[in-house]
């Protein structure tokens, strides 16, 4: 099991969290102007790296806040936790 450090509540068990997929995906400013391909790219296409990954988690059983995590998808090592709206520390993923 992972131990995830909630930016508010500190280290808690993975069972208290919900996973929210890849982080930092901005909704297009003007969806009406997009091609179907560009819309599909926004809606469906996600990175699937073997290595560091920026992703969202939510402390569902605790303070119920969303935040960002940089987790290695191969080793499960969590190397950064930062709040919503903040930029990933260092060079990102």
């Amino acid at each position, binding site marked *: 099991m992972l131990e995830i450090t909630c930016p508010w509540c500190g280290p808690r068990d993975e*069972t208290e969290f919900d996973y929210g997929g890849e982080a930092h995906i901005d909704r297009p400013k003007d969806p009406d102007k997009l091609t179907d391909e560009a819309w599909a790219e926004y809606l469906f296409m996600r990175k699937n790296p073997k290595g560091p990954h920026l992703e969202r988690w939510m402390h569902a*059983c605790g303070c119920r806040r969303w935040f960002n995590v940089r987790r290695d998808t191969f080793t499960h090592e969590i190397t950064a936790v930062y709040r919503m709206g903040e930029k990933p520390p260092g060079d990102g993923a």
Partner: protein
Amino acid sequence: MPETYPRQGALDHLRLDARAVDDPGDAGVVMCARRFVGKVNLRGRPTKRFREAAGGALGFAPPVKPNTAAGAGGVSALWLGPDEWLIVTPPGREGEVIEGLRARLGGQHAAVTDVSEGRAVIGLAGPRAREVLMKGCPLDLHPRAFKAGDCAQSTLARALVIVHQTSDAPAYDVYVERSFADYLWRWLEDAATEYGLAVIRG
């Protein structure tokens, strides 16, 4: 004034009063159902203005340190999130607390909601109370990590709970959603039996 309704505690059907003892003796765990505790959900960004207004109504400022509680005069505020608290009052005093908060917070972007009936409160104390919680709760409850005045939202036997440590003895108040109260009481009773359990009046 809305019509009143026959109010029933979430654990009344267990007839705990009939089992309650006056002196728990050397029981390792002491449990009680706290009936009709007032609970008020308070939301708002903890600006200086907000904290002064809420503090003026409550007699103390809502805590900004995560997972801590503050209180005075029988009323406590439990930190639930960076802009959310659970105000806990003695039975019957939630109305005046709500009125006080609404009067002081008028005009601010804040919300004061009576959620008294939403959760049941189980009091858990005694020298082995911590061991009972540790059987089903992922929190680090060691005294160096969790002590009197700390509170946390987590799971206990898979039910969502708020745990508030009220004394270093230790003693805890466990807030559980009303529909889980029967289940959680039975689970706690089962978990506590090996340490010797006494039920007292709430």
